[in-house]
């Protein structure tokens, strides 16, 4: 790959030695692999996060996890890598960033063969944003969906706050990526360099007037060891935390009488799917229960009402328990009449609800495999495919 410039051969006449110096490996294999892997996982996370529905959540979470692992690995390499990978070699203070910008405006700025001071800021911003995205994503996942390392700790309100931040950060990352690409295009034009190719081959041509990079020897074995400890420890902690019982998720099986009496005609809806006031209204009107008479003996009604009001939406912290606390004004105990239910199911066609495998909108268990638990984990949605009658 090494090419010799005529300039070098003429001046020194030691072609072989100069040839080795003329082309310099700027981006080591790890940095290049990291860069393009990050592009892939960020693209996957962005596509699934911005455009895909709940059924893609798992892909999004895996992409985010991979992103977090990549960032950790890059940070480790930032302390153990060689000249162009080491943070201390390219992260500069504000004064140098300003003088770099002045030099660009004046046309006097030379070429940084690695990251220039402004580019270095971008690297830090990208890594920090990615790390915060992973963190807020994990808190949102734990608080709202009750899985992952923060499920035992984060309540729904903090999960929702984290999701707001997560979405702001996601837009921030989109902006940063756009600026990063624009910066690379501009710098490539300014220094007449093919920066994209350099990130593939790793090589750049050395030129007179390049800013020298400090000569720092990479310590790959140390980097590997620290990386393994960090990533291994991280994975172990995440899986230990994720296996702790999630906060506010029902664990007791459904009351047998409730499951028998109410499950005779429809899904035995978990009591946490309606607030206590709705349950009381429902039991007060069993004679006209969704267009049918569902009368029960008073002693059974009393028993069931005590059970459901003690396990109502207010008593749990799952996503449905939080969402269904707000009921429709004109149908206080019809889950499918709530705005949340309608919004969540807007993408499901009528044909699916009318299909033999589903039959009705209220048949939660036809698609939500964990409906009986009241949890409604997005990973356990399985919409029946056959929709012909």
């Amino acid at each position, binding site marked *: 790959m090494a090419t010799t410039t005529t300039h070098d051969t003429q001046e020194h006449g030691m072609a072989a030695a100069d040839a080795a110096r003329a082309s310099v490996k700027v981006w080591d294999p790890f940095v290049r692999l990291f860069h393009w892997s990050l592009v892939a996982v960020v693209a996957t996370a962005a596509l699934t996060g911005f455009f895909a529905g709940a059924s893609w959540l798992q892909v999004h979470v895996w992409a985010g996890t991979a992103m977090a692992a990549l960032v950790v690995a890059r940070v480790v390499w930032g302390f153990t890598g060689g000249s162009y990978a080491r943070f201390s070699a390219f992260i500069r203070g504000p004064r140098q960033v300003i003088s770099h910008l002045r030099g660009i405006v004046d046309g006097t700025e030379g070429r940084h063969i690695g990251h220039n001071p402004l580019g270095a800021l971008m690297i830090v911003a990208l890594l920090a944003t990615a790390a915060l995205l992973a963190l807020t994503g994990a808190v949102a996942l734990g608080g709202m969906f009750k899985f992952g390392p923060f499920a035992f700790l984060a309540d729904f309100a903090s999960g929702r706050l984290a999701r707001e931040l997560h979405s702001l950060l996601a837009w921030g990352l989109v902006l940063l990526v756009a600026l990063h690409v624009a910066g690379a295009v501009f710098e490539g034009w300014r220094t007449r360099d093919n920066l994209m190719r350099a990130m593939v081959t790793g090589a750049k041509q050395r030129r007179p007037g390049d800013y020298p990079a400090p000569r720092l020897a990479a310590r790959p074995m140390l980097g590997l060891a620290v990386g393994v400890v960090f990533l291994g420890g991280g994975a172990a902690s995440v899986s230990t935390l994720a296996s702790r019982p999630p906060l506010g998720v029902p664990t007791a099986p459904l009351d047998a009488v409730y499951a028998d009496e109410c499950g005779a*005609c*429809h899904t035995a809806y978990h009591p946490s799917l309606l607030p206590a006031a709705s349950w009381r209204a429902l039991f007060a009107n069993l004679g006209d229960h969704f267009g049918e*008479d569902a*009368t029960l003996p008073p002693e059974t009604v009393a028993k069931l009402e005590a059970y459901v009001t003690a396990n109502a939406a207010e008593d749990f912290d799952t996503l449905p328990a939080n969402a269904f606390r707000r009921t429709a004004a004109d149908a206080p105990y019809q889950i499918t009449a709530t705005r949340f239910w309608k919004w969540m199911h807007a993408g499901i066609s009528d044909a699916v609800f009318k299909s033999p495998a589903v*039959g*009705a909108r209220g*048949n939660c268990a*036809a698609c939500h495999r964990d409906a009986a638990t009241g949890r409604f984990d997005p990973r356990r949605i399985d919409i029946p495919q056959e929709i012909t009658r």
Partner: protein
Amino acid sequence: MMHKRKLAVLAAIAALAGATAVMAGPRDDILAGYAAEAGVTAFDAAAGKALFTGTHTGGKPETPSCTTCHTGNLTGPGKTRAGKVIEPMAVSANPQRFTDPAKVEKWFGRNCRSVLGRECSAKEKGDVITWLSSL
């Protein structure tokens, strides 16, 4: 081998017949109770069929007939309006039918009010059970 299988089938049939015979006891008691209440000596299967398969206007508009949910094929399963499967109504397909007095009363109560808008008489309940036992 064939012998063994035949024996197994025979044993299964015998067991089923035995079960049906055992189950027939409570059903006869339930029918006897309705007969005493209605003051009749026999029930009318044809009247039961007419009530069960007929379309009614007195009840809730969602359920004009028993067959809305139980379907016209009583040896097969039905389906509630909420999508839940209902076991067959015909005793021949479901020997458990009409053997638990509390259940029988609960569902006649609910479903007569839903479909007819009133309670069923003891005569009507006996007619329907008699018809569904004859299928």
